[in-house]
């Protein structure tokens, strides 16, 4: 907007120049009376001065009734400084003249009073040319003294009305000012009245001058000059028409100024309008500009009465452009005439236009630069008021172009004012730009008094315009700025802070720079990190807010990503120290279960980070977190004093130090103790790196961690140390439970027993009040209990186990095994023939030593399920012929102290490895009738699977030595299974499962009676083998159990005992008398009693063809249709042998084949009288 004809009208730069711009001016100041309030003397404290100053400046408009009775509003502008040169422009714009002076001073003595009065008087002299009147406010000492008050200017007695407790010394005779005496601590109630009176006085002087001027004949008036113009008019013909008009125009404008000051707005508008017309015609640009400005100022006063200086109003962006920010336009109450009726009043948009014109005109004069600058600011402020941001901006832009020789201080003020107004119109970037310029001026080489402190403060203010917030955390969420500039600005700020001696701030800002600008720093990062190190030597950075004198708080900056944390893992306790909950009886909660339903919440999309740990920590026990750190810098640095940051329960952290090699990752373990039980939140860690202490919170780290990790801390628990009497096993197995603290390994021969002592020591300070021992294997429970036995009684006696005490208990171990060969059970190869020749079938089916070579293949029969030993885990104990290894865990659950109270315990596990070595093995078995009817022989093929000589005691007083790897056959006499054990099964109809049940009962009967005690002489190992699980076929069963039929055989009338040998002569008649008694509870039907003679040639051949060898009288068969219980059936027959030899008699009783109705006495079942009767015929 500057005129391109700048400077053409004033080329002489040596002209006096108004050198002190007043950037704070607003257009309303055109209407104000200028009063200087001056602090004089050295006694008055600045605070008191400010207090009174603030009171006085509130009186900025005063209503005064003029001589015609009209009320005028008189505006007052108070200032603290006024360069006397500025009065020079008083003719051009009257409001620039200082017309009032109020000085404020204090005295304690006459000397001081004199001095204060002298200063006041000299001020009056200084501003003599313009000053209308003055007042001197004096604070005296508190003492009542009756001293005459000097009445300067002989006016009223108002000053005598002061509080009379002020000691008034006599003011010097040359002091010709009205003094106002006050007590500085008293309310000074009439101060305002005094000032109003003073303003009144000024007004009347002004009014009289105005009237005087207005009465002058316009044609006669002298020319008014702007200070630099004086020379231009020397020697000019002032009588020319042109110049006369110029004089008139200027005077008209001058009258406008006076009217405006005197509260006559309408008149002033008229004068200004007239002046514009006149001055335009004579091309008097400077004064035309002045007239335009006056016109605008007067109009603005009407339109925007509330316009204020430097209000901290920030434009609301959504407000429509051009709409005045104050909702209602209030008319000045004084102007009785309404706005519309004021003629010549400018419309709002015209104000800006006029200002623009005025500025263009001013710009033609280099010497009017300050007037132009001030006009620009005034115009901008009106544009702000009108909410015309762009217009305001263009006025402000103009300011920068005005070439003024200004002091650095004035330049700074200019930029600060620009920044302030830019801020008001929401041009934050522009404001920041100006603030930066102002800041650099403070320390520019031209500035004789560089002030880094002020530079720093301005720089700090400029941050927000560059989208830099002081809080690094807020920066994370803030809008993106211009990183290149932001880095530059921060670096400048750091330099300023450093130079100003704010080392803490320099460190803080450098930390901030590294923290927030990380992604944009490439090679600079290293350099900055080094700078930070050197800065922090001056002042270490710590995570506390820094408060500046101005009240600005610089929040802490933490280097959360130097070093960069790539992983943060909370560690569970070691397995055996992990607290477990003690299982409680589950309470019956009833059928109504509460199931919280999670409806699709909005954070469904977020990756669910599990911040709650599913394990527990224990009070007063070391807890650990593993942190993986990466050094992003290309040089090594040390991170010291790393501690965990926690909230919740009290946590004591152990400081750690780590040295990080460049661009390398390192793992640090941070540990500590929770000192209370409850919920613990781990929120990050603190570091001390590059000389800066940082609190690195997880939620602010670059890598997206959850805001915290939560873990429950339970009350203290005791710790138990466990030892065993057995050697540790060489290797741990792959068992899942890892709470193993020790191990025990041993070897047992099948059937061998041993003991292991477990010693427990309470190493904690908490007594153990709960102790439970259990064995865990993957074996079937019955087998497990056979191998491992813990005396719970003994365990319970240990309690309580006090701190530092030991106790022990025993675990009994037994080498359980199936000693029976599987594949020989109920060997089908055993013949059924009646005359089965002893053990011949056994010998043929004996597997022999071949079984050693096919240990693994023995699995093939494992599914037979005939042994109760062979449960789900056949590979362990399936066969006595192979070694096996059993792994077991002895779990010791213990608790005590407060942790027990919270239902927690620990588990220590002892790992057992038991190698079971084969000892003996029954490869085959059969049963034979014994000599006694109530016994039978269990014939076993026993194999010694060891390599040593074994002594086997298979029955009382029956021993046998078996060489290693040898087998031998032993007959074991066994009591037959009494019918009482089986009676249940005779009553029910037969079913196959019943048969199996009988088999089982008989098998148990045998295994209970048969104990094969073995001793390995070389090693003194001994053990007991059982035939548990032996299986029997039905033939065997008949032998094993007592017969349901009781036989009684009489030969020749004598009862036949089985041990007897019968001898008779050929041709003799022998009487056989037999009776069968039913010893069952049920009756037997359709039995056939049969007698048969035969010869056994002992070569496997049985000869039943006896027709030629003997003759029988009487029937050899008898049908017994019904045999009631306890009843007896008799039969008799006679026999005559024809030739000598050995004959056998088989007496049997059988049920018919077709009759399936009978019970266990199943169809076709045969009972024999055993052994067969043998008769030697001579």
């Amino acid at each position, binding site marked *: 907007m500057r005129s391109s004809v700048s400077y053409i009208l004033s080329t002489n730069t040596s002209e006096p120049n108004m050198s002190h711009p007043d950037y704070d001016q607003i257009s309303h100041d055109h209407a104000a009376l200028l009063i200087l309030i001056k602090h004089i003397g050295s006694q008055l404290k600045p605070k008191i001065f400010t207090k009174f100053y603030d009171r006085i400046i509130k009186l900025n408009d005063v209503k005064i009734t003029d001589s015609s009775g009209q009320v005028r509003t008189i505006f007052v502008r108070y200032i603290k400084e006024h360069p006397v040169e500025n009065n020079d422009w008083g003719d051009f714009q009257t409001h620039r003249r200082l017309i009032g002076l109020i000085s404020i001073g204090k005295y304690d003595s006459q000397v001081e009073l004199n001095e204060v009065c002298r200063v006041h008087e000299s001020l009056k002299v200084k501003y003599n040319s313009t000053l209308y009147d003055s007042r001197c406010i004096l604070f005296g000492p508190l003492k009542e003294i009756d001293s005459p008050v000097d009445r300067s200017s002989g006016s009223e007695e108002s000053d005598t009305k002061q509080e009379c407790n002020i000691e008034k010394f006599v003011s010097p005779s040359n002091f010709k000012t009205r003094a106002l005496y006050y007590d500085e601590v008293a309310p000074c109630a009439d101060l305002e009245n005094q000032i109003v009176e003073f303003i009144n006085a000024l007004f009347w002087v002004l009014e009289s001058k105005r009237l005087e001027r207005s009465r002058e004949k316009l044609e006669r008036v002298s020319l008014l000059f702007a200070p630099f113009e004086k020379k231009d008019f020397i020697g000019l013909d002032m009588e020319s028409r042109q110049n006369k008009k110029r004089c008139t125009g200027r005077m008209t404008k001058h009258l406008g100024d006076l009217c405006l000051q005197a509260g006559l707005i309408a008149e002033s508008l008229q004068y200004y309008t007239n002046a514009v017309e006149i001055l335009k015609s004579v091309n008097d640009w400077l004064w035309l500009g002045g007239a335009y400005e006056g016109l605008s100022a007067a109009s603005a006063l009407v339109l925007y009465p509330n316009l204020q200086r430097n209000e901290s109003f920030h434009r609301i962006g959504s407000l429509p452009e051009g709409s005045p920010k104050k909702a209602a336009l209030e008319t000045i109450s004084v102007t009785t005439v309404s706005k519309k009726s004021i003629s010549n009043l400018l419309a709002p948009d015209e104000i800006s236009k006029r200002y623009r014109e005025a500025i263009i005109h001013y710009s033609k004069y280099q010497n009017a630069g300050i007037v132009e600058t001030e006009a620009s600011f005034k115009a901008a402020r009106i544009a702000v008021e009108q909410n015309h941001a762009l217009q305001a901006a263009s006025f402000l832009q103009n300011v920068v172009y005005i070439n003024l020789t200004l002091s650095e201080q004035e330049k700074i003020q200019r930029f600060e004012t620009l920044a302030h107004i830019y801020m008001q119109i929401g041009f934050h970037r522009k404001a920041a730009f100006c603030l930066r310029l102002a800041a650099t001026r403070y320390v520019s080489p031209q500035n004789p008094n560089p002030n880094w402190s002020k530079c720093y403060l301005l720089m700090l203010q400029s941050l927000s315009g560059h989208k830099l917030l002081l809080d690094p955390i807020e920066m994370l969420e803030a809008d993106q700025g*211009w990183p290149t500039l932001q880095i530059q600005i921060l670096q400048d700020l750091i330099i300023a802070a450093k130079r100003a001696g704010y080392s803490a701030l320099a460190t803080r800002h450098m930390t901030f720079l590294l923290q927030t600008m990380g992604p944009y720093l490439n090679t600079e990062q290293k350099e900055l990190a080094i700078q930070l190190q050197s800065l922090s030597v001056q002042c270490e950075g710590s995570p506390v807010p820094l408060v500046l004198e101005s009240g600005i708080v610089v929040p802490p900056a933490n280097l959360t990503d130097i070093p960069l944390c790539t992983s943060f893992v909370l560690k569970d306790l070691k397995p055996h120290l992990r607290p477990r909950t003690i299982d409680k009886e589950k309470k019956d909660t009833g059928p109504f279960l509460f199931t919280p339903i999670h409806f699709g919440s909005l954070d469904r999309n977020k990756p669910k980070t599990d911040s709650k740990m599913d394990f527990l920590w224990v009070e007063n026990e070391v807890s650990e977190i593993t942190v993986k750190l990466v050094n992003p810098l290309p040089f090594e640095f040390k991170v010291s004093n790393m501690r965990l940051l926690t909230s919740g329960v009290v946590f004591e952290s152990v400081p750690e130090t780590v040295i990080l090699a460049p661009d390398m990752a390192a793992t640090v373990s941070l540990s500590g103790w929770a000192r209370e039980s409850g919920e613990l939140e781990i929120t990050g860690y603190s570091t001390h790196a590059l000389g800066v202490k940082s609190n690195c919170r997880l939620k602010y780290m670059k890598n997206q961690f959850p805001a915290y990790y939560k873990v429950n801390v339970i009350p203290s628990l005791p710790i138990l140390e466990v030892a065993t009497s057995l050697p540790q096993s060489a290797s741990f197995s792959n068992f899942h439970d890892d709470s193993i603290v020790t191990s025990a390994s041993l070897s047992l021969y099948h059937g061998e027993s041993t003991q292991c002592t477990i010693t427990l020591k309470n190493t904690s300070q908490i007594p153990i009040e709960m102790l439970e021992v259990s064995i865990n294997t993957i074996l079937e429970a019955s087998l497990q209990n056979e191998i491992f036995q813990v005396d719970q009684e003994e365990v319970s006696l240990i309690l309580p186990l006090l701190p530092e005490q030991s106790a022990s208990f025993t675990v009994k171990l037994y080498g359980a095994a199936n000693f029976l060969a599987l594949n020989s059970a109920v060997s089908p190869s055993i013949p059924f023939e009646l005359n089965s020749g002893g053990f011949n079938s056994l010998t043929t089916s004996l597997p022999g030593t071949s079984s050693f070579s096919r240990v693994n293949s023995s699995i093939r029969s494992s599914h037979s399920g005939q042994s109760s030993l062979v449960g789900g885990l056949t590979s362990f104990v399936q066969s006595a012929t192979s070694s096996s290894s059993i792994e077991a865990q002895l779990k010791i659950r213990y608790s005590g102290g407060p942790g027990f109270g919270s239902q927690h315990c620990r588990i220590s596990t002892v790992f057992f490895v038991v190698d079971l070595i084969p000892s003996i093995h029954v490869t085959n078995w059969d049963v034979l009738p014994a000599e006694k009817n109530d016994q039978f022989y269990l014939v076993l093929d026993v194999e010694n699977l060891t390599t040593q000589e074994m002594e086997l005691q298979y029955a009382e007083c029956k021993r046998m030595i078996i060489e290693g790897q040898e087998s031998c056959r032993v007959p074991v006499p066994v009591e037959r299974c009494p019918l009482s054990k089986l009676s249940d099964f005779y009553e029910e109809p037969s079913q196959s499962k019943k048969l199996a049940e009988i088999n089982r009962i008989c098998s148990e009967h045998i295994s209970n009676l048969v104990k094969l005690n073995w001793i390995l002489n070389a090693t003194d190992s001994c053990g007991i083998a059982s035939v548990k699980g032996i299986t029997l076929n039905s033939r065997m069963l008949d032998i094993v159990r007592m017969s349901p039929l009781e036989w009684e055989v009489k030969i020749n009338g004598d009862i036949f005992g089985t041990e007897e040998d019968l001898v008779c002569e050929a041709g003799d008649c022998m009487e056989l008398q037999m009776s069968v008694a039913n010893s069952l509870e049920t009756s037997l039907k359709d039995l056939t009693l049969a007698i048969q003679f035969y010869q056994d040639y002992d070569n496997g051949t049985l000869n039943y063809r006896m027709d030629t060898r003997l003759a029988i009288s009487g029937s050899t068969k008898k049908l017994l249709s019904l045999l009631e219980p306890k009843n007896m059936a008799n039969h008799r027959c006679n026999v005559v042998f024809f030739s000598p030899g050995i004959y056998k008699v088989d007496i049997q009783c059988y049920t018919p084949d077709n009759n399936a109705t009978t019970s266990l006495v199943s169809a076709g079942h045969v009972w024999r009288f055993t052994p067969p009767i043998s008769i030697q015929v001579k």
Partner: protein
Amino acid sequence: MAVCAAIVGKDNSPKYFCCINPDEELSYQYKVLSSLDIIEERLNPANKNASESKELFLGHLYSLETCKLYGYVTNTKIKLIIVVNAMNLTLKDNDIRSMFQKIHSEYADMVSNPFYIPGEPITSKLFDSTIKGIITGTV
């Protein structure tokens, strides 16, 4: 010929910045940044005067002693700014306008580049050389 061109995103952060003299880049960045205030104000929908023009080319934004800044805002609120030396009197508004249109065209092509994610800074070397060509008048 212009001395500097910038593309500023919706969020007012720089997406692309090129300066014929790399040494002056920082100072031009300050100038361009300051011009955003004016652009924002011009685009303010409440601003009656400014929004009357429906042209994407905003024309002259403001001048400094050494340079003049021109603005252009796409319908997608991408701001293009060109800085011209104040001494350069040969460039007329129409030249600047067509320069902007060329840059806009290039930008639209850039957005169609699968390797460019809208909203990220532009790092394409081809783009850089093309823009430099446009502002120096060699394209």
